[in-house]
């Protein structure tokens, strides 16, 4: 809690002069701003301040000042926010964790946040401060109450005006840290509540988000999470099928991912990864002294190349690589020397690209589309989700095959080759999702926003989830490279 203490000191520091003014007076008055006089004892806030009176202190004085002197408030809140900088970003980081897989969502994210924000249903700033005051009453130390009250008021006013979800969170976190330990639990509850609520709201718009939520809630393996998500989708489909007579075009990422055997490959990859990990551990346990140190260093080198990879979302031009041949070229280059063929993956990408071309061109390029029927947004969405699921499944398959070949051939495979591959795959997913969403926008130009936006968000969300799955699968390769390294080492020392 050193941060909280530090910031409190900062807050108190800023108010030091007032504290000194108020304390000697010893009057819990000041409810009337114009006359900080002892005799004026009419303030409505007075009631709330009864308790602190036991140890006469400043809070009373501060409150009206905040209300009356906007300039001062501003200054104070700036100061205090400086102190809470860490907390502010903490709140922010919670939100970004909550939406970790939404990072590439772009316009979709804004919409989600807006939606989350309006339906959060958290107490209003005034309610919050009232609550804080109440809790404050129960506190014995008025000094603590003093800083917090001011802080709460100041901060609550500020960010709520900004009206962003981030601001709301940061105001809440400052409530948490400033009202002392008793409130911290309550504050955390509120945060948790907000977190859950936000996720529910996001999830409402897209069932795929539940996967992410599940990922964060449990320590389950990736394939388990995906399987559960798929089962939920199957259940939903079964329910809607029984009720809906007309068949709607609904795309379920998880089910499709399984259909392309993505789950099975992931499960197999997890098995290999786990086994390699335990083998590495047992080898390490047999070594000692210099040998152990040396091997550890070598393994750390491998670990580093896995942890230092940056999957930054560099801007991709959606006009580029119209037929997927560029991706194929890049992929083939990256896979050179690896005895696994990326054919299935390139094929999947090409088929996605040709679908996009087919949907963007107004004239029917496919023979099957005899009528000049316009593609519905649902159809575009379904094609997008299907392509993403297929591409991801094929990527996982590729990683699984790579893992098998590394273990099988025991040749040296550089981690950098694998990370480069991961970057290429993630970039392609991002590119495809952009192409599909611009398709959606075109197809849905006559649709209402509330029809189109969830679909667009859904595509971005699944693209982002896909990238996470691929990155997780990439991480699963680490123990495999480690054990392969150990085996090669043993072989060379035998010779």
């Amino acid at each position: 809690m050193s941060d909280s203490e530090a910031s409190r000191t900062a807050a108190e520091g800023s108010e030091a002069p007032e504290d000194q003014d108020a304390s000697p007076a010893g009057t819990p008055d000041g409810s009337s701003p114009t006359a900080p006089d002892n005799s004026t004892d009419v303030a409505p806030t007075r009631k709330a301040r009864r308790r602190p009176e036991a140890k006469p202190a400043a809070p009373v004085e501060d409150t009206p000042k905040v209300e009356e002197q906007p300039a001062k408030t501003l200054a104070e809140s700036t100061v205090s926010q400086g102190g809470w900088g860490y907390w502010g970003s903490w709140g922010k980081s919670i939100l970004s964790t909550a939406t970790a897989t939404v990072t590439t969502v772009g316009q979709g994210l804004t919409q989600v946040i807006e939606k989350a924000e309006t339906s959060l249903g958290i107490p209003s700033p005034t309610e919050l401060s009232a609550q804080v005051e109440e809790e404050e009453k129960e506190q014995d130390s008025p000094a603590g109450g003093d800083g917090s009250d001011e802080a709460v008021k100041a901060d609550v006013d500020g960010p709520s005006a900004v009206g962003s979800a981030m601001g709301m969170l940061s105001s809440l976190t400052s409530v948490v840290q400033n009202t002392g330990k008793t409130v911290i639990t309550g504050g955390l509850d509120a945060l948790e509540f907000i977190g859950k609520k936000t996720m529910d709201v996001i999830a409402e718009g897209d069932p795929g988000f539940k996967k992410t939520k599940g990922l964060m809630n449990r320590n389950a393996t990736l394939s388990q999470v995906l399987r559960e998500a798929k089962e939920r989708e199957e259940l939903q489909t079964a329910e809607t099928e029984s009720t809906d007579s007309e068949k709607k075009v609904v795309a379920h990422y998880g089910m499709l991912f399984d259909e392309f055997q993505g789950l099975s490959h992931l499960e197999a990859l997890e098995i290999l990864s786990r086994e390699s990990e335990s083998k590495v551990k047992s080898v390490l346990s047999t070594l000692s002294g210099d040998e152990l140190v040396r091997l550890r260093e070598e393994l750390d080198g491998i670990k580093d190349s896995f942890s230092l990879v940056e999957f930054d979302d560099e801007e991709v031009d959606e006009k580029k690589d119209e037929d997927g041949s560029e991706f194929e070229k890049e992929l083939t280059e990256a896979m050179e020397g690896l005895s696994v063929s990326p054919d299935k993956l390139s094929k999947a990408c090409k088929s996605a690209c040709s679908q996009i071309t087919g949907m963007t061109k107004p004239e029917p390029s496919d023979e099957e589309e005899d009528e000049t029927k316009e593609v519905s947004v649902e159809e575009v969405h379904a094609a997008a989700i299907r392509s993403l699921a297929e591409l991801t499944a094929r990527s996982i398959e590729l990683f699984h095959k790579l893992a098998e070949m590394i273990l099988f051939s025991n040749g040296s495979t550089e981690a950098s080759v694998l990370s480069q591959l991961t970057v290429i795959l993630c970039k392609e997913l991002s590119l495809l999702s952009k192409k599909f969403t611009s398709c959606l926008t075109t197809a849905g130009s006559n649709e209402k926003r509330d029809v189109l936006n969830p679909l667009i968000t859904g595509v971005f969300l699944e693209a982002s989830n896909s990238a996470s799955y691929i990155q997780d699968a990439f991480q699963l390769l680490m123990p495999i490279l480690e054990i392969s390294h150990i085996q090669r080492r043993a072989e060379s020392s035998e010779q």
Partner: protein
Amino acid sequence: MAYAYLFKYIIIGDTGVGKSCLLLQFTDKRFQPVHDLTIGVEFGARMITIDGKQIKLQIWDTAGQESFRSITRSYYRGAAGALLVYDITRRDTFNHLTTWLEDARQHSNSNMVIMLIGNKSDLESRREVKKEEGEAFAREHGLIFMETSAKTASNVEEAFINTAKEIYEKIQEGVFDINNEANGIKIGPQHPTTNSTLPSSQGGHQAGGGCC
């Protein structure tokens, strides 16, 4: 495509005995005379119906090559059923059965149902292993036995489905702890409306999203 149970199968046996072809025949109902060598493991899935219940078979088709053995062994664990395949036209594939069996028993759970399959029954003229030999081996080791042909599809359905029936019976008898996923059995998503109310038109065996 909701299912009551999911069974994990493995297909094992010497290289070239027709493991991948059996799977392809079962999932896609087609035969490919020339098949690429399987690397590590490939997958197939299909839905079948037993006792009015939808059961999804998730099949792990392993590589037969000796050099892959250390990898494929890792996949044995958590299988509810195994198809141990030999080629009736190649005596050596039959001779290796003991090794395969030991391997399977050692790396999987003890309740795993094993179906011994003598494949390529269509090549009667080139037969090297008599049917009786296969039956005797199966009896001796407590396996179910069948001769199949991935080419003509003879007994292919039966081989997969009879294995599932055996597993299903074991579940009914309480031999399998279905809540332990290490047994290779998963319970499907729970339905508010039970599977028994599914239309009887689905009584036949339906091809699932088989894919390889």
